[in-house]
């Protein structure tokens, strides 16, 4: 884009923002940056311009860049959930494409700012990730690239197993408090009149037994104590990363730190996994509405229509979140703007509430509930959604019934589409071994990957690791003892 185009784009953005404000979008201040393609693809691969270095990002970058160079796919933009929001525009886009993109990212920014799932994400992640990257680099200098890479390899393999629910910390603290109380009471039943004196220890963080007083709050103290005591591990625990950080006996402090920063970054990205369809649909809905309000020339209008059609192009083999999301949002608007007789009577729904309802949904739902509540029979039939499966050498449609399709879509979005792994026991066999349990809900794990991932768990836990899952309706236990993986039916 040359200077004249930049000027023009700047004028357009002012206009776009005016329109967006008119629609009631509530977004962060925007920082638009025009970048060449390899920089955009770098950010696409890393998820963030300032993230640490790892060969897997290089691999992703190479693949993305290759697809772009061959014209197979294209990233138009990249927007970062932060305050202010950074949006990176592709230098090779036409002026009109970049206008559309500017409108599109306003939708994303509004979503980041207002959706409940993002409420707890830190909005200064650009700087934090830069600091994290700097720490990783320092560890590389101090401990060698090889060692740091090994920890990163293992950590990245497990990084998706975090608990991002907004109340996770509260629940954990409460459980830890109760666990400590139980143990305490069992160890010293309160019978005498002076037993309340024992609680002095509790205030100091339960360190009376260590003979050294630790100050700094109930939870912090309890955590620190539990870390040293195998019996006080909080299980079951969904946050495998946190469990490893807290209880692993083999990790050095810097290794723990690397796991912590991986976990922190995953928690930041997590809401984006959980709202992919909503978020993309929302942004697409708004770029459509905003661009319609702009004065486009005939040629621009055709270009825009073509670009938009490309974005919402359905795919035979996967769900296009832009297309599905947009369809559901527009359907919500329609049904609340113009409710049927039945809806008016049964739900007391007044006509003309479309936009209000949409803003309410964008605040309170994530993909699972969004699909569950608003993906209707009519929509599924209109869009011709189906389920397919590999049968022999062919991929065939196996289900078109709308409820089954909807349920499957919901199920596939549970936990961001990532298997749930529980830590069931941190002292298995009374030998400090780790016992993991897959929360099986009908879809099997990729067994080859299980066998290759367990050694990573072992690298971080330092002792035998076990994973229980279900294969062909039978419970199976995979065990890795540091040398090889064994599997046995339970």
């Amino acid at each position: 884009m040359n200077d004249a185009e930049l000027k023009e784009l700047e004028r357009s953005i002012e206009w776009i923002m005016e329109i967006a404000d008119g629609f009631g979008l509530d977004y962060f201040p925007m920082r638009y940056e025009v970048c060449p393609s390899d920089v955009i693809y770098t950010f696409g691969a890393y998820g963030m311009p300032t993230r640490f270095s790892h060969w897997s990002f290089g691999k992703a970058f190479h693949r993305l860049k290759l697809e772009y160079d061959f014209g197979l796919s294209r990233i138009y933009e990249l927007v970062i959930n932060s305050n202010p929001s950074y949006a990176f525009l592709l230098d090779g886009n036409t002026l009109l494409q970049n206008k559309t993109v500017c409108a599109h990212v306003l939708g994303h920014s509004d979503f980041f700012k207002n959706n409940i799932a993002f409420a707890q994400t830190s909005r200064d992640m650009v700087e934090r990730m830069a600091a994290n990257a700097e720490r990783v680099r320092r560890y590389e200098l101090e401990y060698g690239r090889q060692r740091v890479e090994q920890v990163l390899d293992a950590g990245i393999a497990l990084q998706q197993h975090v608990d991002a629910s907004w109340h996770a910390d509260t629940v954990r603290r409460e459980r830890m408090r109760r666990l400590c109380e139980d143990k305490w009471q069992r160890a010293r039943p309160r019978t005498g009149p002076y037993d309340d004196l024992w609680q002095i220890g509790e205030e100091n963080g339960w360190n009376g037994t260590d003979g050294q007083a630790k100050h700094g709050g109930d939870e912090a103290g309890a955590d620190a104590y539990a870390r040293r005591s195998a019996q006080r591990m909080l299980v079951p625990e969904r946050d495998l990363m946190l469990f490893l950080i807290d209880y692993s006996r083999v990790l050095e402090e810097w290794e723990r730190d690397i796991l912590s920063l991986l976990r922190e970054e995953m928690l930041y990205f997590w809401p984006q996994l959980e709202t992919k369809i909503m978020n993309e649909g929302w942004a697409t809905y708004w770029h459509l509405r905003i661009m319609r309000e702009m004065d486009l020339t005939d040629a621009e209008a055709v270009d825009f229509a073509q670009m938009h059609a490309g974005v919402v192009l359905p795919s035979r083999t996967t769900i296009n979140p832009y297309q599905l999301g947009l369809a559901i949002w527009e359907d919500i608007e329609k049904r609340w703007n113009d409710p049927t007789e039945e809806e008016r009577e049964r739900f007391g729904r007044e006509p003309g509430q479309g936009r209000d309802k949409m803003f309410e949904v964008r605040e309170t739902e994530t993909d699972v509930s969004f699909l569950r509540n608003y993906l209707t029979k009519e929509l599924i039939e209109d869009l011709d959604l189906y389920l397919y499966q590999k049968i022999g050498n062919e991929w065939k449609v196996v289900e078109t019934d709308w409820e089954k399709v909807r349920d499957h879509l919901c199920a596939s979005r549970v936990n961001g589409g990532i298997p749930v792994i529980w830590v069931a026991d941190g002292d298995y066999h009374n030998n400090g071994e780790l016992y993991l349990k897959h929360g099986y809900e009908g879809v099997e794990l990729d067994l080859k990957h299980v066998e290759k991932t367990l050694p990573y768990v072992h690298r971080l836990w330092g002792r035998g690791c076990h994973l229980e899952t279900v294969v062909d309706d039978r419970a199976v236990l995979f065990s890795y003892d540091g040398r090889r993986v064994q599997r046995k039916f339970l």
Partner: protein
Amino acid sequence: MAASQFTLSKEDWSLHRKGYQDQERHREKVKQAIKENLADLISDEGIIMSDGRQIVRIPIRSLEEYRFRYNFNKSKQAGTGKGDSQVGDVIASDGPPQPGQGQGAGNLPGVDYVEAEVALEDIEAELFSELTLPNLKPKSPDDVVARDIDFRDVRKTGLASNIDKKRTLLESLRRSQRESARQDGLNWRIRPDDLRYKTWEDVEEPDSQAVVLAMMDTSGSMGLFEKYCARTFFFWMTRFLRTKYETVQIRYIAHHTEAREVSEEHFFTRGESGGTICSSAYEYALTLIEKEYPPQRYNIYPIHFSDGDNLTSDNERCVRLVEKLCEQSQMFGYAEVNQYGRGSTLMNAFGKINHPYFRTVVIREKAGIYQALKAFFSVRDDTSRPA
């Protein structure tokens, strides 16, 4: 109001190389993985049979990003049809669809189901970097040719086009610093005295007048596995020689009870039958050397593959002939494919030979082919030839 809510900027990103750096690291890891798996890779049937297909699919373990994930092939997926999709419609056949495509950035990585693809060239580059023709000697003075020029010296005089800018600047800085210490004030200028020029030297390499005599037992006792090993070895050997040394000649000698020279294609594709008399091949090689490749002009490398199942009465003669061959060549290699570790009369007989240029290898499994290549085509601390 809107104006204050955004900025639009275009900066110079040319120094942002992170993606390329990590891509380079990934490439390094691929190379390392190839290196570690070389023994398995080069004995892979897919490569030998690939017929010039330059890319082979191999599983490279360390590069896949393993994690606990769902089994893609065993679960249902959702898709969008064109309208009126019915149960039983075929969407795609064979190869899985590629998820994770479509526009939009997002941080959801595409599911990576692709096996690592490695170009044959990469495998070759790795393999050949470890191999070399042993004891190669310039055989006659006129064979020495200048191959290349190499900039490896810096002088104060030279061609203006060869000015070494960096060194010149450094030199000038150094000098002006020295001078400024003596006088006050820095007066930085490039003087003629600061100029540095790159100069080159001719790189002279002995033109390797070398010939490889590839001998293979094609008798009936050579089973599928034996032939496979021998052919794989010669396949890589030929490629290696052709890539690294342009003027190396290869002659193919097939033998059972008698030896004859065959074409390359014939050598690699045909099998024969009959008993085994190895000396026939050695004799043929000796005549070939006598007639066409005088040892004072050629580096000669006879290499023989057999299963060791030689006619017992012939062994004596073999030893004699091999000793003679060793005298005339730079290295004599004998590889025995012996899958079951049975006693081999020929190997026993060869045990007597004590010549620094004589090398033997026993191949018991496919991975042994790599060991054989390394054993024959490596520079050992051979003592100089006995007078």
